[in-house]
């Protein structure tokens, strides 16, 4: 983490919980830069997370109020906090398993209600902390601890899911493109509506080693390859098709 971002971190926390090559550190840095550029008042900002690797991004690292909740329930906790104190800026950050599987119902209903919440999904397409099991975002055919012959199911396209549930601001970024990501995060945080950012983040430890991407570098190269510059300066669909399209998806 750059020294300029240290003011947002608790000095008592000396180590990162993330594995080597994990994208969540880049996401964490991007989020803090977005917060810094917005000049957000951390005293009035609440970070809510669920369970899993991504839930550790705010808790215990951020020097702010953090609510580290139950698996899948972060959005529901955040809804109560925001409704009871609308002056709080409430940012939920959790993983794809947490937000889209066990917490999928809360995610779509929060999008439908359009309460002012920012939800950031650190999407590594696998269950990292529990040992690499299949997630609702794991691409079809890919290998996990619970799909050793390849995931037989279609993955969720979280952008379409949340958009379909009514969220006015939805974006997908990747940790390989941090400057665009910071822009999406800034817009999401500044939004007066429910805003969702799906962030592709490599997991070399659980995902990479099972899918012949046995180095962090190989995973980042693949993620870069999924996204090409389009004429408009944003990302065009890459080789994984529409389900990994990056960019903003406004009304």
């Amino acid at each position, binding site marked *: 983490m750059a020294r300029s971002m240290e003011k947002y971190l608790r000095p008592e926390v000396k180590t990162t919980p993330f594995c080597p090559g994990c994208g969540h550190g880049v996401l964490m840095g991007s989020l803090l830069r977005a917060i810094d550029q917005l000049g957000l008042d951390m005293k009035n900002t609440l970070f809510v997370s669920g369970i899993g690797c991504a839930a550790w991004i705010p808790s215990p690292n951020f020097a702010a109020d953090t*609510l580290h909740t139950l698996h899948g329930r972060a959005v529901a906790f955040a809804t*109560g906090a925001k409704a009871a104190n609308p002056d709080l800026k409430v940012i939920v950050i959790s993983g794809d398993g947490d937000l889209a599987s066990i917490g999928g119902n809360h995610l779509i209903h929060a999008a439908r209600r359009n309460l002012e919440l920012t939800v950031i999904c650190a999407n590594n397409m696998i269950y990292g902390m529990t040992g690499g099991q299949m997630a609702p975002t794991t691409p079809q055919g890919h290998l996990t601890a619970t799909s050793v012959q390849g995931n037989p199911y279609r993955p969720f396209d979280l952008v379409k899911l949340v958009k379909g549930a009514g969220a006015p601001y939805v974006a997908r970024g990747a940790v390989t493109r941090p400057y665009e990501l910071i822009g999406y995060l800034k817009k999401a945080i500044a939004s007066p509506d429910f805003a969702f950012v799906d962030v592709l983040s490599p997991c070399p430890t659980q995902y990479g080693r099972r899918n012949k991407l046995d180095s962090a570098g190989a995973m980042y190269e693949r993620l870069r390859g999924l996204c090409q510059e389009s004429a408009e300066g944003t990302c065009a669909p890459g080789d994984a098709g529409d389900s990994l399209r990056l960019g903003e998806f406004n009304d």
Partner: protein
Amino acid sequence: MPLRTVTNPVKAGSRYLSGNDAAAEGAIAAGCRYYGGYPITPSSEIMEYMSRELAPRGGAFMQMEDEIASISSVVGASWTGSKAMTATSGPGLSLMQECLGYAAFTETPVVLVDVQRAGPCTGQATKVGAGDLMAVKWGSHGDYQVVALSPWSVQEMFSLTVEAFNLSERLRVPAFLLAEEATGHLRERVDLPESLEIYDRDYQPHEPPFGCDEPDGIPSMPRFGDGENLLVTGSTHDRWGYRKTEGPAFHDALVRRLSQKVLSRKAEICRHEGYYLDDAELVVVAYGFTARAALRAVRQARRGGLAVGLLRLITIWPFDDELIRRVAQGAKGFLVPEMNLGQVDGLVRSAAGDTPVKSLTQVNGSTISPASILAALGEMR
């Protein structure tokens, strides 16, 4: 002082109310300003009342997508400083159990009104039961304590809801109003006071929010936005909220403190009423709606020459086993009528020593009649 006398914000005087409406008015009177819930029979009128009354008072109402979301939102709201509540019935209570453990472990004040119906499972949604007594105390994993109060009248649906808030805020524990369908849907006259005592959360700036030096102590509780950089986590945590899952002695001390902060205060938490106990040979131990039938049966038995008394438990959790032990010294037998298969009977038995205990159980979706209790007393002579 956190305890203060306030003017009752709901209309004082004699009113004719249902139990569910009285519980909702009790919540408003106690200062509840957040309600998150999901409709379920026979508790829904509480939610409907809160949906009407909270917004005009500056509070917030959320109809959530399920009961898991409901209690989760209540915990989130509570940490913003709002007194917060949900209401439910059996199946909803089952769904809330994981977060009930979260609330207990993070010392979050929340009030849950459980208007019990006949279970298990969907059971009889519109019929009465009292089968949730063990579920409210033992339903979530691990060891923790809650407070549960058992009203027998619409009057107490109001007053014990206020008390549930006061205990929850003071002890930083989940507190239950453990009612039954019969009381929730009962309509009777209630005297609502002009003023009442309510407890406001104790917040001492810069004190650790999750620990204190006493092995049964209750730490002060800040809010989100107070600038305390709160770390709230369901993992084992130190007094500042930092995750600390190493060290068996540390976890042991934390779990014991959370239990002891309730158990060591039994004397001030536990309430009961005694009727005709001075010379009673047989004692009916009853709670909730069943205690109404029990009192009538006891009076009828007295007229028939039986030396019978009623011990009405108002506080169910923590369970006042010392009270049972005391009453057992002068009694020849206990009768425990319940709308379940003997959930409190076991507790009475374990405290009663050599005094025999007879259990009268009924799980048919109807209230227990005075005649049934009278007949059971007759068999005990």
